[in-house]
């Protein structure tokens, strides 16, 4: 019996859930009532980034 492919690890697992990060958006997703879309300057918490990892292309800690 073939072994099921392993689920890829979430690249943002190491982020702090409550910390805020400057994020580049790859695909639109909804946070609460607001849509986050590519091209917008978005600041998200680590928890939101993990929940929407597919839509995030780059993460940078907020420098302040």
């Amino acid at each position: 019996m073939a072994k099921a492919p392993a689920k890829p690890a979430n690249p943002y697992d190491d982020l702090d859930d409550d910390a805020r990060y400057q994020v580049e958006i790859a695909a639109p997703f909804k946070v609460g009532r607001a849509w986050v879309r590519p091209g917008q300057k978005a600041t998200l918490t680590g928890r939101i980034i993990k929940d929407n990892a597919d839509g995030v292309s780059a993460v940078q800690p907020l420098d302040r």
Partner: protein
Amino acid sequence: MQRKVNFTDNQQVTLEDYNNLGNFPRESMDNVVKDLGGFPVGRYSGFVAEQTGQSVVRVSVGRLFASSGAIFGFDAEGGQTLDFLQHLPAVAQKIATVIVYGNTINTDVEPRTQLVDVESEDTQSAELSTENRRQAYVDFVLGQENATPQAPAIQSNYIAVANVLLTPSGVASITRITANEVTSIYGNSEQIADHTRRFAQVGPQIDTLKTDISGLAAALRAKADFAMVSAMSYDLARVKERVDLPDDHAAYGSDIFWTDDESDTAHPDYSARTEQGLRFPSAAEAVVALELDNPIEDRVIVNNGMALPKFSTVIRLSANGKDGEYPLTNTTVQTVQLVQRTEARTVRRYSTTETQGGSNDSWWKTAASVNGMSLSQVGAIFKRNGELYEVVNYYTNYDPLYAYSYAAGTRQAYERVTLRKFTEETMNDYYTDRVVSTENVTGSIVAQTMLNSQDGYLVGFNWFFTRKASAGDVRYVVCEMKGNEPDLNAVLVSNVVPPASIAIYPAKTEVRFKPIFQQKGKRYAVVLMSNGAHFVATVAGNKLAQGNIQYMIDGSWIQGDPSVDMAFEAVYASFTSPIVQVSLKALELAGGIDSVKLNLDALIPDGSKLDFDVRVGAKWVPLAEAAAHVALLSNLPSILPIRANFVGTTDVMPALGLGEDRTEVTLSRPDEDLCHISTVRTMPAPMDEATVTLLVENWDSDDHDIDVVLLTGGSYTTTVTPSAQIIQVDPARENAVKVVASFTFGSPVSSFKIKITGETGGSARVYHVSERVDVEFT
């Protein structure tokens, strides 16, 4: 009975006479039934149908009353039996309608001897009918067999008496058709008596129904009808969609930062400015007064803090002479309150780094949508520091390109011109009671009204006194008119002439005062008040023609002799030059000036103009032309030379306030950090989520930064950061972005404050938040 047959002694009687013995009563009876009965179709009486066997019905005797008035009788002994056995339905049901109809027949045939020859008296025997009868007949008409049977249609000369419901097993029911039954007079009488009793009970209520309905109609007129409310609900739903209000939102709020009434300015972290948007605070600020550079400048004449270009005087209105005299103490002594009006204001703003309110789309749209801003918003424009400045009414011209008036000829009291970096806001009322001073004055009061035929500045009067007392000042007041009476609540100038200064006719008593602008076509009044026994000269024969004398008695104005006027001369200003440039004291702010805000008392008549130039480097630049992208003060000069340009005609020129009482000049440069904290936002119920949206203008995406957090907890010290904050470019406005911050609370929150922090990051531009909207959800 209409007709009867007459017989006399020995009269020969004909056969017709005998027959008429019956015909005449029948005729009368027919008329009675026809006229008093008035049946449109026949009616019946009697004919009671009852079931006597399984399929047998017996109909009792009765009468048929035809619409013609004829009465047909049915008097068969025992009635008539109708047997439906042969007509019972096979499966379902059927209705047989019992009908009656009439026919006139000759009956009761008997053998009678008939005389055939009178002379021979021969007779013969014959079978003769001895009775003419109107006979009613009973029969039935069958309907169709059906599960839900219908009564059959019957001919118009039949009268339906009863419906007999037939089933396969026989007669199921008999229903008497009472609608065709004749109603007796007794029955009618009983019904009328019943109605009368009922009407007596409800009559009083019916009598007041008209009043009640009128009351209801009056109440209904004040109500919106359902269709309107329904339409409004639809519109509101569309508006919610347009302004991005979620359908399930539970609470919401917004601030356009016109005033700081929704700002927690006492918060220790608060560092912001609310001035047509939320703006960065000043890093340094100086508030100074506008002064003449040369205190003895001879190009202008300063009177009561108002500077007018140099002028000479000219007499424009004259009623000279002495045809009589009027004692100033002629009427009872009154105490009146004078409400002094003051010159209107103009506010000019210039900023190098900030954009002005014209690009602040939010409040400007608000202003347009409600046909004007709130009074507190207008008041905030012209208010000076620490001053109670109440606006009670105004007209607005929010768009100089599409100026409009509320009524033809109405001069709007507030006008605005906005360029990108420069704003000019002017109250167009020449004199305003928005800042008032009042005083109480006692004396006998007399007034002379006058019509001003052309724009100009009134600077004084020449009075003619015929006698004077040794004591008692004469107070003169120039005021506007309300209707046809002097308005002491709109006083333009009020001064006193002591007895020693009063000259006796023909000498003039000259009084001069602060120039008062008088509009063409407007009526004014000069009011004299005194306790002294002074006499003024009067002229007769309506020499002035455009005014009259009025006296105040018991607080009311009374018109005097219409052909008599006070003798006087009105003195006006005649300006030497139509263009005058005056240097003002240079503006100074240590460390550099970025923004200039001039809040000035000013009077700018139609056809005149008041502008300011500032010197940048070696060049004088009009402040108003520092529009668009001109960064006039980008080098942050610490000293800014400024001059005023008065432009007009020899009759009208603008007047400019000078000094601390009439001017407030704010010089500033913005700080690099912003921190605004709202007042407490209290929710109607605990909320789970919140979204705060900011509209930010003059945004520099490279350097600017902004953050929104919520403060919760008992003393609002717990910071809740947004789970997401996005900044999206607003395509409809240049350099504008929308900041959307979404919050999710760990546990429901009943109240919070909104904290906005920002940095300019060394940018040459400074942004402002023109609107904040928050929406909360359960």
